[in-house]
């Protein structure tokens, strides 16, 4: 290995990259956009349905000790008019005006806003009806034996923006592949690579230099964003290792794309379908249950799952070592295949 030559190529490419101030500024602004999206999104999960209650003469506690109460937040409102106003303003999803006495004659007016979806109307009606049964002491003919499958996250739900951390990391990493693949493919098409190879630099050195630059560029950007959005708050070493492996993975994919494409546009044509596939596991984290075990054949699954588990569920090495091992395996296979494909292109060129 000609490390001096490799260092020179890495420095040359880095200088070229940052000399283009527009390119550099835009890349930074792109990162800022991700950060803004993160901070604009809600930081908490609203787990309850908020109902306003106007119940003159009826102790509100009567409604608060029911089996279905965990998911409902009742707030007592001093007047029926105010209750209607609050429902119209969207403070409460529904307003209940109770009249009479639960032990004798009893009625409920349910106020719903007109823009409430039909399914939510049915939901509210079901909830109120069940509350009415329970308030009047009529047990259901079934006794539910509740069992929680998986870790019970009640009260500690993960906000959607924190689920998106994996998506940010994967998106930044894979977007960077276009830049590296474009640079590589144009280097061969414009024959600047051939010019470099007449120096003491070998093809192996050239690939190593490109791999180092691509990995550093992808890694640094993803780490900056993850650090700002709180992805490094728990087990930073695991996250660093995972992102580094992810950066190597995208560099390997960039080699493939560069071997297939002739210029930046054809690199994009090959890369976008690949990128869409690789982003699927990050979407699966945002909407659990939409995919099944087939998702594990996508290499990026092991990266997104690691970031999600560590950053959100405080997983440690014991829980994710297998993910990292599989990611290393994918990296070895894909990097070898990518280099082979690019070497063939270089030889033909």
């Amino acid at each position: 290995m000609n490390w001096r030559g490799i260092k020179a190529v890495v420095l040359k490419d880095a200088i070229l990259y940052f000399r283009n101030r527009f390119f550099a500024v835009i890349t930074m602004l792109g990162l800022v956009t991700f950060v803004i999206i993160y901070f604009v999104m809600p930081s908490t999960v609203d787990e309850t349905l908020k109902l306003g209650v106007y119940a003159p003469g009826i102790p509100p506690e009567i409604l608060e000790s029911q089996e279905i109460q965990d998911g409902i937040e009742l707030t007592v409102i001093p007047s029926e008019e105010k209750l209607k106003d609050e429902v119209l303003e969207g403070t409460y999803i529904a307003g209940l005006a109770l009249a009479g006495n639960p032990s004798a004659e009893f009625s409920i007016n349910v106020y719903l806003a007109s823009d409430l979806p039909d399914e939510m109307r049915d939901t509210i009606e079901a909830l109120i009806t069940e509350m009415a049964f329970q308030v009047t002491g009529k047990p259901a003919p079934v006794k539910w034996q509740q069992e929680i499958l998986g870790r019970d996250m009640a009260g500690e739900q993960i906000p959607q923006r924190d689920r998106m951390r994996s998506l940010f990391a994967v998106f930044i990493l894979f977007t960077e592949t276009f830049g590296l693949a474009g640079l590589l493919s144009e280097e061969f098409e414009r024959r600047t690579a051939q010019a470099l190879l007449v120096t003491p630099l070998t093809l192996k050195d050239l690939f190593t230099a490109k791999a180092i630059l691509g990995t550093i560029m992808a890694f640094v950007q993803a780490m900056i964003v993850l650090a700002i959005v709180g992805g490094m708050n728990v087990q930073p070493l695991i996250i660093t290792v995972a992102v580094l492996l992810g950066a190597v993975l995208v560099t390997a994919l960039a080699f493939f794309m560069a071997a297939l494409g002739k210029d930046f546009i054809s690199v994009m044509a090959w890369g976008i379908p690949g990128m869409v596939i690789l982003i699927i596991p990050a979407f699966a984290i945002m909407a659990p249950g939409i995919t099944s075990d087939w998702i594990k054949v996508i290499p990026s699954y092991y990266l997104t799952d690691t970031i999600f588990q560590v950053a959100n569920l405080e997983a440690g090495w014991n829980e994710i070592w297998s993910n990292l091992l599989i990611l290393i395996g994918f990296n070895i296979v894909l990097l070898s295949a990518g280099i082979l494909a690019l070497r063939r292109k270089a030889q033909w060129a």
Partner: protein
Amino acid sequence: MGVMRIAVLLRKELFQGPKNFFFIGAIIMPLILSFAISLVFGTLFNDQASLGIVDEGNSQLVMMIEENSALVSIEYKNFDELTDAVRNGAVDGGLVLIPDFDEMVKQGEQVDIPLYMWGESLAKDRSIILATVSNLVRELANQEVPIDIETITLGEEENIPWNDRLLPLIVLMAVALAGLALAGSSLVAEKEKKTIDAVVVTPTTINQVFIAKGLLGIIIGVISGIIILLINQAFGTNPALLVMLLILGGIMAAGIGLLMGAFSQNVTTFFSGMKLFGALLYAPAIFYFFPDMPQWIGKIFPTYYIVQPIVEISQQNAGWSQISFEVFILIGLDVALITLVAMIIRKKPQYAV
């Protein structure tokens, strides 16, 4: 003005365009997204509680749950499939109905039924599942509601389903992607290949080249926007007004595309710009996804003045009087952009060629 020359240049763009990746992407992407995003995001943002059921007998309750819109129900073949689905979050809850369940309930027997809940399911979804299923079981057992419940609807606003909320994003994507990507990428590609130098040594002026490329973006953007609106049956009662807005939106997108194209020396730089400006252009549409977010933020972005009138016309059948304020701002922004592009061509020709 050289209308004939512009027409020749435009014809060339339209015939050569389909070989360009951006051209194909700009037309096909919004169409694919129109079908795919509504499907994917419709599921992603569906906040209805879901219940998996295994029916070991032939319970009437299954059909009652299916017909109730408070829950989304999925039937599973066996216990293992059901618990797997609950464990990985495919459904919020899981219910196993034993043989003779209906008879036991109708005879007033107290039946113990396991109800599995996904660990990450929201507390409100758990309550909804419990309340809805309990209610339906009571109905099966012919229990009567013990009190009078009257539902009263307040206000006149209509509910906007997710598919409708997604429409602004898709329309904006169609207009902006075509206007921005086509006009800009075509300019950058010519600059990179130096063909623009060859064109401007002929009697064709750089202004005419810019106009032709801008028109390409506007025409394709407007056509894509119209197709998206037709597919989504969202033409509203004022189609002429809608087309006018698409044209004004196309002018804005093409103007931004030409500016980006003028300042980008190669496609790589142009693509980097699209990464940023793409996110900024689509930003107002995001606020339709999340109505709880402060809506004034959306007004900061220039594309708000394309999206908002389109939403008002297509979803609320608004007329000129309701949208005129936003339209005048949009026209003002278009004029400013055109002026800026013209100034760059005149005062900084090195960017244009």
